[in-house]
């Protein structure tokens, strides 16, 4: 229980740190967005002093306020969900992004789920037939796929499956002419559009199967398996409950790290498939120097990852009872 509270506190701390880092980047760094407003946007305005008001409207930071006040203001407004005003869409950043979050979550959760479900099964199969042709072939295949960045795979798939053979749409979240809603045609189109992004993340993640294979092989050498066999337990029981469970445990860390990297990878993926999720907006904002939207998207993606990791961490305690019991002497 205590551990869970600590973990929650850590998540809160991370969010606070991210907002603080954002503030520092927006306000303090050389060439920061606030200066940009005053020196670049300012002279173009009829009344150059308006630049300060604009900076406050868009970025939530009033450059005339002393730093601590500006910081507290920024923190409170951000935590209240006010991320400023987007310059290219001229809408509040939260509104622009709110429409994008579900799409990113949709694609990414499928990609993560599939790569781990398939990776674990494949890894188990490879370990079961270790040294056979199946194993050697699959290992080589997974090794090669791991070493190819997913965006390269995505581009290759886009070239062949979309442009050359027209199996999948070339981009977007759903067919543009369809009315969004919960009807079959639209859902089918959404799924059809999501297949390639999910597939390119999934195919590139051979790492899961490799580490599952390694873990299983390591477990296979353990003494307690010999004991289990001597007890006369059935092969399925041993494979699932003894080998499987113990081999999956260490993969949980890998899962957590790939949550972060996959959400990060969403930026590239969504650009390639012109999939309007959070990453697409982030990049769009970067290219048009829409600083409020950029920082907003960055914070949103980070908070999504923080929440995902928090959930993953808290559920880990259910799988592995040893988690969270560490107390050490300090030197």
């Amino acid at each position, binding site marked *: 229980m205590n551990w869970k509270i600590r973990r929650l506190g*850590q998540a809160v701390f*991370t969010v606070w740190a991210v907002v603080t880092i954002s503030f520092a980047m927006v306000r303090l760094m050389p*060439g920061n967005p606030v200066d940009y407003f005053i020196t670049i946007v300012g002279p173009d305005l009829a009344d150059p002093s308006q630049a300060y008001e604009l900076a406050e409207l868009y970025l939530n930071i009033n450059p005339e306020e002393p730093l601590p006040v500006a910081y507290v203001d920024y923190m409170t407004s951000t935590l209240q969900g006010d991320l400023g005003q987007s310059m290219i869409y001229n809408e509040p950043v939260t509104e622009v992004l709110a429409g994008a979050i579900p799409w990113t979550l949709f694609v990414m959760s499928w990609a993560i789920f599939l790569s781990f479900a398939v990776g674990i099964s494949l890894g188990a199969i490879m370990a079961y037939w270790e040294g056979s042709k199946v194993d050697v072939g699959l*290992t080589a295949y997974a*090794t090669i796929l*791991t070493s190819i960045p997913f965006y390269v795979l995505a581009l290759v798939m886009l*070239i062949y499956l979309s442009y050359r053979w027209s199996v999948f749409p070339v981009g977007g979240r759903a067919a543009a002419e369809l009315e969004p809603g919960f009807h079959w045609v639209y859902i089918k189109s959404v799924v059809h559009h999501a297949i390639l992004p999910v597939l390119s993340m999934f195919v*590139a993640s051979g790492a899961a199967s490799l580490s599952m294979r390694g873990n299983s092989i390591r477990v296979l050498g353990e003494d307690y398996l010999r004991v289990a066999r001597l007890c006369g337990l059935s092969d399925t029981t041993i494979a699932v409950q003894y080998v499987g469970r113990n081999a999956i445990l260490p993969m949980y860390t890998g899962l957590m790290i790939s949550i972060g990297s996959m959400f990060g990878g969403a930026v590239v993926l969504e650009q390639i498939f012109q999939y309007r999720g959070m990453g697409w907006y982030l990049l769009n904002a970067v*290219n048009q120097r829409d600083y409020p939207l950029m920082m907003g998207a960055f914070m949103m993606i980070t908070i999504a990852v923080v929440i995902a990791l928090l959930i993953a961490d808290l559920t880990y305690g259910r799988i592995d009872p040893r988690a969270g019991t560490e107390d050490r002497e300090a030197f």
Partner: protein
Amino acid sequence: MTADSHDCEPGPDDGESADDDGVGGILRGDGGQVGTPFDTTADVRETRWDRYGRAIDGYIRMPLTIMRQDWRSIVGLSIVAVYLLMGTVLTWTVEPTRTGDGPQFVQPFETWEYPLGTNEMGQDLFAQTVHSTGPVLTMMASGALFTVVMGTFFGLVAGYKGGEVDTVLSSITDVFINIPGLPLVIVLSVLFEPTHPISVGILLAVAAWAGLARAIRSQVLAIRDESFVEAARMMDVPTPELLIKEILPHLMPYIMVNLVNAARTIIFSAVALYYLGVLPFADANWGVMLNQAYHAGAIYRPDATHWLVVPMVAIAGISIGLLLIAQSLDRVFNPRVRARHADTGDAEDGDGTEPGSTEMMKQV
């Protein structure tokens, strides 16, 4: 001789050691009895050269012997050697290409003049690829080094010290683990606009070191209570020296494997950022080539596909090379990968990935 006189290590014929012998002859640990095992000192003192020799044996000769028997390392090292060659010798010999050097869209493998074809601007893709190698390798080296140094420092100190220090360092690490790497790097590169390969590498490493720090911390936790560490602590060895001389050597294998993996991570994200057009660029590199090809519509133009494929192959190639090296290093340092469960096959078919190596899971 002059070099020796500046040594802090007493050599075998130093005055100090002679002094030692003299004192040792009079004072005995157990009050006068001669010949107990506790009073026995080695006849030969270990000189600095002996130590170097041992280090060379352990860190160079032994790994090389194992690596020579492993096809992964041979293939991996030759691939990386090819890239190194491209980054040095070929860069000096192949002329840099300029716009309008040749006709548009020469297909690859058709003429010797343009072995990999040309792009829309008539630039020779082969020359472009070769001249990209140097900057990319620099980026990779600086990023990987920075990742490893940061990760090792945070992990080592946090894991060993424990208590308050651990809390502070681990909190910083956790924050960076939670921030997704690519978006952070994108935002940072918009604000800093790094152009030099070294600074790009360091910037990219900002997002990569935290995972390593956490992994190293847990490794340190496993050995911090070992008796040799305790002995060193009893002897009042200063903490920095203890960390570097006693604990670090035990982590070296792990760090080496992760150095190679970090290099891959850096390349992946560097190319991704150049492809997205986020990083400012002056010269071409593989990511810039991808970016230009993408914007020229190479995705739907069959005659321009090679423009995309050439940089893709370059990235995948070096990545496979590094992956193979990492796997074979793992086998060198991790005897368990070789020996455990060896009854179902020879050493060849053990798996290459270290199950504990979380870096393997990273994509970008």
